[in-house]
């Protein structure tokens, strides 16, 4: 990238003016304005908030026990009333007699926990690796990039399955398995942005002032690659949820009796598909809705942060 020209400097000033103007408006007006500019992203955001609330307040929202089997109510139809508890199975029960709605609400906890953990850790490690790789250059960059090449030569699910094969199934291992492929993906994108930043004179200036490498990386370079970082982070959220669901569906992810959407489909959704279609339908709706919302939101973030891609 060339050093910022005068026009670029002027643009920055104009932008600063806009920011000042924007700050004078109360936050709710700004929120509404943003929502109007990005209706799809805003609706995605609303769904995410609802799911987050579901995940946090799962204990308060549900009345059935999430993990206890009750074989008497195996595959109970939606609307069946539990005679002892005097509660209604709103969406029906699964093959172990557990309330589907309860498990979906608790499943949000698993999905969002895995999604956020993987996306945040994966993209943050990628960020550090990418910036360091660009900043130090030389053999360090070369080695990092070759390792990135190797890891990126694996399709996502294959790599995740290979990691699970090593570590064994379980929530924690699934998180590791999903996070590992994310790191190089983010590192590659961040590196290409950081390479351009490194050429800008202020980095040289910082070095001339005798700042430590860590300080230059953390204080001067990392803040300037926040846009690609956030874009990658949001795009990972949906992917992680989908991947967790796929792994759990294959029986290689979250294990019974923990409620997880993919696992709920594995349990026999196909076998009971005809007699109890609700078992096969609702968890899938939950997965799709979550990934859908995160993708919409991610697209919005990308459009806002990367004006070159706008209107795509």
């Amino acid at each position: 990238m060339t050093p910022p020209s005068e026009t670029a400097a002027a643009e920055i000033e104009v932008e600063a003016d806009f920011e000042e103007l924007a700050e004078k408006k109360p936050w709710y007006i700004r929120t509404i304005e943003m929502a109007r500019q990005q209706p799809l992203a805003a609706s995605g955001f609303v769904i995410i908030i609802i799911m987050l609330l579901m995940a946090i307040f799962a204990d308060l929202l549900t009345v059935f026990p999430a993990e206890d089997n009750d074989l008497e109510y195996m595959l109970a139809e939606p609307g069946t009333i539990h005679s002892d508890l005097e509660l209604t199975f709103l969406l029906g029960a699964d093959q172990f007699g557990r309330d589907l709605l309860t498990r979906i609400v608790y499943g949000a906890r698993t999905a969002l926990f895995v999604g956020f953990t993987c996306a945040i850790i994966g993209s943050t490690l990628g960020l550090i690796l990418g910036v360091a790789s660009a900043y130090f250059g030389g053999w360090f960059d070369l080695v990092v990039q070759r390792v990135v090449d190797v890891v990126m030569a694996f399709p996502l699910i294959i790599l995740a399955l290979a990691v699970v094969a090593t570590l064994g199934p379980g929530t924690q291992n699934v998180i590791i398995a999903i996070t590992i492929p994310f790191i190089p993906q983010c590192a590659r994108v961040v590196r290409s942005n950081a390479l351009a930043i490194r050429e800008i004179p202020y980095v040289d200036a910082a070095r001339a002032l005798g700042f430590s490498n860590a300080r230059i990386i953390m204080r001067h370079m990392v803040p300037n690659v926040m846009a690609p970082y956030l874009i990658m982070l949001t795009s990972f959220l949906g992917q992680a949820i989908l991947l967790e669901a796929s792994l759990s569906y294959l029986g290689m992810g979250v294990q019974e009796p923990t409620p997880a959407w993919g696992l709920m489909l594995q349990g026999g959704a196909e076998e009971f598909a005809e007699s109890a279609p609700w078992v096969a339908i609702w968890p899938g709706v939950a997965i799709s809705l979550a990934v859908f919302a995160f993708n919409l939101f991610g697209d919005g973030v990308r459009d806002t942060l990367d004006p070159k891609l706008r209107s795509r």
Partner: protein
Amino acid sequence: MSKYILKRLLMLIPTLIGAAIFVFFLLRLVPGDVCELRLAGTGLYADPAEIALCQKNLGLDQPLIVQFFDFLWGYVVFDLGDSMWTGFPVVHEIGLRFELSLQVAIMATAVAVIIAIPLGVISAVKQDTWIDYVVRTFSIAGIAMPSFWLGILIILGLLISTQHFLGEPWMPPIDYVPIWEDPMRNLSQLIWPAVATGYRYSAVATRMTRSALLEVLREDYVRTARAKGLIEKIIINRHALKNSLLPVVTIIAIEFAFLMGGLVVTEQVFNLNGLGKLFVESVGAQDFNMTQQLVMLVVVIFVFTNLFVDVLYAWLDPRIRYS
């Protein structure tokens, strides 16, 4: 150009060796192997001597580094070894299933192209109208829906609709017959997984077609074409679409490579005996050799497709010159 290809081919070698190291040591990080699983996995008492014998037969008692070089040497002499679980040669096991996976991948690609290109074009031409929004929602939904769930829904839909219209439920056949033996039976089995994966895969391609076409429609030569009074249809079909298909071709090729290994989940739903299912089974059985050979197969397909795409790109777009 040939110099570029040669350079890229040489660069593949460290990547492939790196991948081999990675998968080999990854699988062996944690104690336990196919012998222990086979002999003691069911919870029964297993004679340690028997386990040791099994390990000796499979070469698992050798130091890791020796095992690793054995594994690499296999590529030099074109001997991929045997499955540690079934005892059959890896090539034989893969050969049995390769055809099925390849066919599903090709059919899914066809489904994706048939859906993606018209929808992407309509969406771009009608940008920001309700049609555009419907198409975009349809494609985002495609990315959001897990293909295994779509598969379950398709099976469910088939069961219910055949029950309703034909009086008895119909399920796609489970056993695979090659297409040249019984095309109808083959297609009636494989069209459903192809649709389930093809739809998901079309979503990415639809979005790509749309954005690429939008970009090209803003080019000066399109403005010139409009200025000289050319009909919009000709502008799009003859002038804009061709130039915008470049990134679409790329994404389709890359996704195709992914499909070869990425059918893992779909094959499970439709109970297809393909490479993906074999992979899941060998992972479950800790069949190190089978797993690492399958991973390497997918990686090889993946990296060569990437190379192929880059070359194709230069060939399709004369403006791109690799040095």
